[in-house]
């Protein structure tokens, strides 16, 4: 074998090896989350996770129920998504269909830049400015509530929704629009009855990807939601999300304890939730790109 052949082959193996890291890392993530979490399954048993009490530090009877944390995450995520949808979708429609070319050139990068703001900075802004506003607008005792977190998270989801929805709207074939306009529909009718429905699967995918981002967000929620672990559906009460619980408690818990293992179960639940949301979103996006 000549040196050249040898070199070609070596390079190829090195590159394959590098490409395999992604698979290896994903496998390691699952492996190590389960490795740390598993002892919990025999004592106190997985049934404990279904309880409604998250009281890992209680001396009389510690509770490791994920229910209040899951409802906390679900409440904040749903509120944030509901808030983000109108701004994301209408913003995308405006940028894709109404804004002039120069306006679009400025708006789109600006909104995408929002996604780059570190979440801890947004959380800090939430404590300093948003929480007092929420407190006075709704006449609450404390501004650190589910709705405060939801507003911040909505802001983080909007760039994702706008960016992907705008692409979807812009890739609707021109012929659809022209046909609608030729039939006498005006621009508003064309946009909302022809273009947006045609781009609907892309828009839905963008909302789901935004949601995936919101579920997994940690810093912004930990700083502004007040962190009370209770089952509630009120947007004005303090809640504790799954992400916030891990970040808050991992620092002070001794390694290998039941509490420590329970925190890894939260991580597994989060991983599975975001994985499913993202997978469905990408399926939707893919099927629509093919169509």
């Amino acid at each position, binding site marked *: 074998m000549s040196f050249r052949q040898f070199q070609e082959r070596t390079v190829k193996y090195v590159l394959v090896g590098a490409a395999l890291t992604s698979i290896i890392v994903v496998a390691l993530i699952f492996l190590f989350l389960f490795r740390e979490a598993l002892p919990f399954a025999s004592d106190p048993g997985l049934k404990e996770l279904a309880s409604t009490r998250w009281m890992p530090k209680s001396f009389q009877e510690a509770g490791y129920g994920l229910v209040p944390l899951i409802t906390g995450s679900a409440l904040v995520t749903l509120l944030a998504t509901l808030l983000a949808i109108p701004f994301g979708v209408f913003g995308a429609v405006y940028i894709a269909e109404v804004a002039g070319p120069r306006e679009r050139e400025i708006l789109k990068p600006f909104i995408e830049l929002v996604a780059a703001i570190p979440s801890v900075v947004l959380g800090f802004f939430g404590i300093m400015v948003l929480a007092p506003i929420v407190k006075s607008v709704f006449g609450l005792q404390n501004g650190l509530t589910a709705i405060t977190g939801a507003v911040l998270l909505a802001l983080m989801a909007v760039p994702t929704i706008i960016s992907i929805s705008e692409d979807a709207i812009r890739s609707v074939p021109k012929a659809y629009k022209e046909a609608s306009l030729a039939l006498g529909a005006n621009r508003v009718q064309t946009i909302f009855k022809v273009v947006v429905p045609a781009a609907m699967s892309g828009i839905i995918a963008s909302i789901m990807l935004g949601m995936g981002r919101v579920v997994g967000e940690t810093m912004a929620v930990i*700083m502004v939601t007040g962190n009370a672990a209770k089952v509630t559906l009120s947007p004005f009460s303090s809640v504790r999300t799954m992400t916030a619980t891990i970040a808050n408690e991992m620092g002070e818990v001794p390694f290998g304890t039941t509490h420590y293992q329970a925190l890894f179960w939260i991580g597994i639940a989060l991983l599975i939730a975001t994985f499913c949301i993202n997978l469905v979103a990408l399926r939707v996006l893919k099927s629509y790109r093919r169509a």
Partner: protein
Amino acid sequence: MGSLSERAAFLGLRIITYFVVLVVGYILFDIIKNGIGVLSWSFLTTYPNPDGTGGIFPAIVGTFYLVLGTILVALPLGMASAVYLTEYAKQGFLNNQIRLAIVTLAGVPSIVFGLFGLGLFVLFLNFGTSILAGSLTLACMILPTIIVSSEEALRAVPQTLREASLALGATKWETIRKSVLPYAIPGMMTGSILGVGRAAGETAPILLTVAAFFLPQLPGSVFDQVMALPYHLYVLAMQFPNAETVRPTQYGTALVLLLLVLGLNIGAIVLRAHFRKRNRW
């Protein structure tokens, strides 16, 4: 121009869009307005005090080390993956699995990366809470960003360049090294800056793998803990929510972090535009 109702509808859309712009503008304005007065040479180069006042020098150094470590690990791996995926991979099982892994990785919440880093690097490999553990964790997190943007840069190189090189008798690797990479590397680099910006601003993964709040000394080795800007801001905000004396440090830290991350991002956008113009085929 269209009818009244049409104009009203467009105005409504415009108001909604600009409301978002306004909110973001206000956030930036608030941080800049309250932080700009704090920025000074001594704020950037002195050590913090335990009561939350003082400078942020160790946090800046810590973030620098973490980002450097992350780049050293993630950049070569990500770029090599991208070269494999664009130049070598054939449609098939392995290719699909790699793509699925990249997409999965991109969706993993940052706190889960923290748990993973804690389980694997800190405890199992026994690196302890250290620069090494944190950098490796962050590298895993930004790997997908680097791969995807590098692939984009590689695909933008016209196929004819590869064909010309192969026709002249160059091997595949010679072609990649001499005819593809020189044109793709600027694009790969700028795309990677976006990932680096994310690594610099993330808090959750380093919370569990590196960060120390008050550490009035610089790290001596990669096995030491460090302070980091995002974590410093987090602790300042949570431990001293109402202390007026800490307010300037909080806003100053927020501004430095914001400038660092947005600066990297804007730099990447400008560079990308520059290279696109230069490499117009």
